[in-house]
């Protein structure tokens, strides 16, 4: 048993698997390195344990998580978009393993799933940070100075729109309209709305989140 910490989402858990170098984070599916020293010897024991135990028949890991969602939608392939949205909400992004699992369980070609994922803006094929910042670039926010807010965020975080900070704390995105046009410029951070912003107030909000250690 190894105690692992995910660099992506910060989740800490006891790894009981048999992998030697990388484990998959059960919460965000990010690949986590298994430290060399701690695992020696333990692995041998684990392997023996696993062989001794009977293999469970129900789906585990990614397949299990996907099957839960797919079951909820009664294996309907016309609900593909809804299923993917739900999975994206669970994982924060859509790893390849998930797409393959969805394609298998719904019995639709992987290319088809991939087409949907790349067509719609809501889906992300790259890992996203713990805090998702969405900057509204709608017409109303634009005439009220959304560009200065975005510029400020870019310089504060050191990443461009659509990118994630290396420590996975923030992801910056632009959206077309958040529907709060009367209060522009508007941003949302993890579904919390912040309106009537100025470059200075944005800096304060980001500072606050950083000091809280990423919410």
């Amino acid at each position, binding site marked *: 048993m190894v105690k692992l910490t995910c660099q992506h989402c910060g989740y800490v858990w006891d790894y009981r698997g048999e992998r030697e170098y990388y484990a998959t984070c059960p919460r965000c599916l990010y690949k986590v390195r298994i430290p060399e020293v701690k695992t020696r010897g333990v692995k041998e024991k684990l392997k023996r344990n696993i062989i001794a135990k009977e293999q469970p028949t129900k789906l585990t890991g990614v397949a299990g998580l996907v099957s839960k969602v797919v079951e909820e939608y009664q294996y309907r392939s016309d609900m593909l978009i809804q299923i993917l*949205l739900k999975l994206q909400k669970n994982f924060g992004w859509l790893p390849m393993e998930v797409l393959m699992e969805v394609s298998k369980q719904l019995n639709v070609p992987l290319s088809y799933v991939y087409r949907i994922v790349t067509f719609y803006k809501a889906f992300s094929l790259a890992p996203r940070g713990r805090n998702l910042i969405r900057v509204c670039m709608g017409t109303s926010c634009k*005439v009220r100075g959304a560009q200065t807010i975005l510029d400020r965020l870019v310089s504060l975080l050191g990443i461009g729109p659509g990118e994630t900070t290396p420590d996975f704390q923030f992801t910056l995105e632009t959206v077309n309209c958040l*529907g709060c046009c*009367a209060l522009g410029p508007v941003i949302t951070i993890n579904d919390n709305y912040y309106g009537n912003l100025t470059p200075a107030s944005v800096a304060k909000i980001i500072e606050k989140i950083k000091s809280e250690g990423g919410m």
Partner: protein
Amino acid sequence: MKEGCKIPRINSPEDLEKLREEILAKRDPNRPCVAICVSAGCSSLGSLQVVKSFREELEKQGLADKVDIKATGCMGFCELGPRLAIYPKEIFYFKVKPEDVPEIVSKTILKGEVIERLLYKDPVTGETIRKLEDIPFYKYQYRLLLENNAKIDPKNIEDYIAIGGYKALAKALFQMTPEQVIEEIKKSNLRGRGGGGFPAGRKWETTRNAPGEPKYVIVNCDEGDPGAFMDRSLMEGNPHLVLEGLIIGAYAIGASQGYIYVREEYPLAVENITVAIQQAREYGLLGKNIMGSNFSFDVEVHKGAGAFVSGESSALMTAIEGKVGEPRPKYIHTAVKGIRDKPSCLNNVETWANVPHIILNGAEWFLKIGTPTSPGTKIFSLVGKVNNTGLVEVPMGITLRDIIFKIGGGIRGGKKFKAVQTGGPSGGVIPEQYLDTPVDFDSLTKLGSMMGSGGMIVMDEDTCMVDVARFFINFLLEESCGKCIPCREGLRVLNKVLTDICEGRGSEEHLRIIEDVTETMKEASLCALGTTAVNPVLTTLNYFRDEYEAHIKERRCPAKVCKALTAYYINPDKCQACLICLRNCPSGAIKGERDIVHVIDQEKCIKCGICYAVCPFGAVEKISPPVPPPVRYGIKVKRKK
């Protein structure tokens, strides 16, 4: 609904009446009730904290079971949020902060006193106004659909039934045949509020008469237009109204399955409509044998995954099928062959929300509101550089001037009005000389713009029209699905040309290219996204040709927006050498010291505009063309006396 409480299934119109009486009898009309707007707009200003501190304060004072707190939908005046209403005295407070809550509880709720400072204050006269009807923002409105947003809790079906909800459904189901319902809608001349203005009654009839079973009805709440949020507000604030309209429509058309397509970006709208559907099912207003009649109907919510083009009717239908939301050629209208090639009737949220009112009050009543060709009201989201931003609902036929100057309170900061943009990226801009045009479907189309879903973005003299056109084209370029070439390539060309003009590389040739490309796109695009994409370019070019020419011939941006054509310059006569701009400059382009007039190094300047924003003396000026007068470093400050 409390746990263990038996849900009364409604099996006849009499049951509904009985339930309504029961609910009303249970409620004490004199019991104080605080209604707080928690729609996305107000919650960004902290209304959720206000609700929380209300709960805590009432708990502390031991009033928790004597005062009702309602978290309602949007009340319109987003500018002055969070807004709350205290019934039964009908006191309205604006800009409420959590710190104000103890005072409100102890003064207004317990003693009935009014707190002057939280009332609406007229920005011009400085007077406080107590009555909602006297506030200019509300005075000129006709709030047919939005009225009840402030009165009901969207998550509680009993609130909706108490104010007469589902009465129209009972009337349609038990006193009218489907043909009569369609006839009534046709007579009322209700036109699609999604933008096109197609008569809803005719659409319903086409679907009803089309061969094929099952038939579908769809609510389009994929409100992708930047600058528009009325569908969101209706969905968040009064989901049962939309649902009731949908059920009546399904009955008239003979549909057995309905879909509600909501943008994923509106989490609260998704939540509220899902709760509403669940409650309607429990009360027997959805599902098998609605209200004990022979009519069965059910609804499913689909979330849109963020594609603007999916708001187009045929694209939306493919999205509901779980495919990529791309439009298809409409040789056969979707009303005949829509979802899974079955007849499908799609209408906008606002259109459906009008239906219960028409059924209940009759077509004659509806025709009295608005103009004969476009009856009824329309909700606009009045945003941009206007004093009172928010949702306004006005009768059709009101002039743009009334909306912007009477309801909107004029332009922010006393600047000059330049244009108003209606209809989102598919609409166009309307300049000052047409401000007295009545707002209805046909007049706006004549001006080259369109009603659209109802976004109304006001622009002042600081907005560059070429930049606006470029913004919309850039938006549409990203959102175009790329299926048909005129739209995909046309937008790419337009974007390039407009960017060139904005960045000072424009030539006369460019204007000719714009005219050529827009012509082709208008004729040959597959769906409305392409054919209307040219509107923002054509209208700006028509009405503001001088601005295009200034960009091209003089390399000058009259509004001083386009970065490549402007420069910042410190006026030596005004500069007080306070070092503020110097400290704030992110690129270290400002040189200066105490008592020496600051100078901007144009080579280093990145034109971020921070110095312009922070200068307390207004000494930093924007100039266009970007050729500042020659400056010498070392001029002594001229102090103001």
